[in-house]
């Protein structure tokens, strides 16, 4: 078949996703990596002090990295029972009517802009936590974890629910036929069968939590020290970048350090996304051979 002009142009648009992805990774790397001529990778990654304005400036990534993981892991601990409980309830227990109301309402959470979650954390959760734990301020790692957990409920719930409803009916029916109760079937057959899918939803939620900016910026308290407790104010990677980027001069060490920090973040996020993708694939293979 003869091709027309438009058809010769189409491939360019097809490859644009690869070009953009490569463009982002290369841009971030090119802006950040030159810093390695002045500081060793070890002194950046394991450095405990972040003092960009001292002489000479210190760019230790550890406080930001530790804060990021502290907050993200805690947020998953809070989000998991809620999301998995909700997913099991929606797919196995709720009546169709309850489900048709509850599901869209939970998904509504996903449409609310992150800065509004940040505001909720700052003005609603902050004062509550302050009183509850008798703290000088309510902005800390726990606050950020709670708000991130709330934000990841729709993601983890929806993905886990998909995984649960993908489990074929036959093994469940076989389990009932052997005299197992609903509960025994859910824990003995459904959840183990869906485990890879559920795990994929958790890694996806974790990848999101690591990269979230505005909510943690307003919630975490912005103190750049290595935290020793979840109740201390923290400043994760994204917040450090968001707070300091605007005031740096292009090409300065500080500018490069922030880009290098972004590169570290990008590597973390990409690894979690790849892991999640791999798990989903594994899950499909397990179910459908």
């Amino acid at each position: 078949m003869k091709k027309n002009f438009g058809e010769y142009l189409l491939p360019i648009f097809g490859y644009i996703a690869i070009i953009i992805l490569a463009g982002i990774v290369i841009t971030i790397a090119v802006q950040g990596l030159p810093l390695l001529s002045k500081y060793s990778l070890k002194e950046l990654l394991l450095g405990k002090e972040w003092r960009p304005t001292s002489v000479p400036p210190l760019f230790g990534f550890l406080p930001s990295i530790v804060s990021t993981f502290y907050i993200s892991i805690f947020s998953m601990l809070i989000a998991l029972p809620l999301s998995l409980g909700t997913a099991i309830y929606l797919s196995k227990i709720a009546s169709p009517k309850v489900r048709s109301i509850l599901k869209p309402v939970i998904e509504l959470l996903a449409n609310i802009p992150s800065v509004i979650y940040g505001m909720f954390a700052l003005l609603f959760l902050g004062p509550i936590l302050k009183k509850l734990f008798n703290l000088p301020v309510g902005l800390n790692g726990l606050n950020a974890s709670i708000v991130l957990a709330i934000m990841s409920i729709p993601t983890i719930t929806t993905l886990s629910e998909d995984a649960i409803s993908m489990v074929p009916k036959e093994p469940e029916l076989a389990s009932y036929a052997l005299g197992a109760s609903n509960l025994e079937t859910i824990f003995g057959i459904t959840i183990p069968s869906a485990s890879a899918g559920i795990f994929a939803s958790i890694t996806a939620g974790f990848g999101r939590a690591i990269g979230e900016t505005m909510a943690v910026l307003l919630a975490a308290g912005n103190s750049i020290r290595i935290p020793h407790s979840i109740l201390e104010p923290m400043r994760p990677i994204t917040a450090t970048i968001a707070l300091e980027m605007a005031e740096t001069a292009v090409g300065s060490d500080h500018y490069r350090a922030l880009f290098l920090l972004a590169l570290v973040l990008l590597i973390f996020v990409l690894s979690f996304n790849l892991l999640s993708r791999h798990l989903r694939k594994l899950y499909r293979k397990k179910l459908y051979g």
Partner: protein
Amino acid sequence: MDKLKKEKIFFAIFRILAFTSLLIVLTLIFYILSKGLKVISLNFIIDYPRNSFTEGGIFPAIVGSLYLVGLAIIFAVPVGVLGGIYLSEYTKENTLTEAIRLAIDTLSGIPSIIFGLFGLAVFCKILNLKVSLIAGSLTLSILILPTIFSATIESLKLVPKDFRDASYALGATKWQTTWEIVVKTALPNIITGVLLSIGRAIGETAPILFTGATFYTRGLPENIFEPVMALPYTIYGLLAEGTFPQKQVPIAFGASIVLIVLVFIITLPGIIIRDKFRSKKKW
């Protein structure tokens, strides 16, 4: 009997967990509404901020947000839709298309602040667009591109192969079949994908933080090379940089309601179009 009791207890736990999630959503919504509704008035929407943003309205922030996403879709929709058409209609499954899919997947998981840094380095600095409406909307367009891309692919895949075969049988070319039959059939779903991505983009703060947004302008931008106010950035600015919290926090709540309403005005038609399309289709 014991078994049933155990089941009842566990089911009650799941129910409590599910309704806790529901309670969280409701708390969030009612909290924002209870604080913000009293600020909302016609003036709040059509007036300019006054007295260093302690009085007046948020008109320029609303317009700025609409400008930002409006320009972003002008850039992103043609590229995303054409790319999706190429991938779905003109390629066979091979390593390259697998790589494109992986790239789309990966892009949609990249944190929005990374897009902001990319926009800062490429649009603001290398292309020397500085902090401007155009740089901000280009950054947003790259953020929503993967969503539009994959929405297009998904929608085209839903069109049955029979439609294409019937068109070829009538002597239509590939190009005609693609545009007249396949894309036309898939259009409602593609529009839904676009609307959902705009709904997300309008609430994003991190990508425009250093590429397009500014806290305060006297008027609307006169051209695309000026920075703009934007709702999410205004909310952040009022909370984080505001110097008169008693007067500015209520404005932030009001702006939040306006932002949420805007998100729903944009995404709701998308959901309605999709549902209508689903109930109408006969194949």
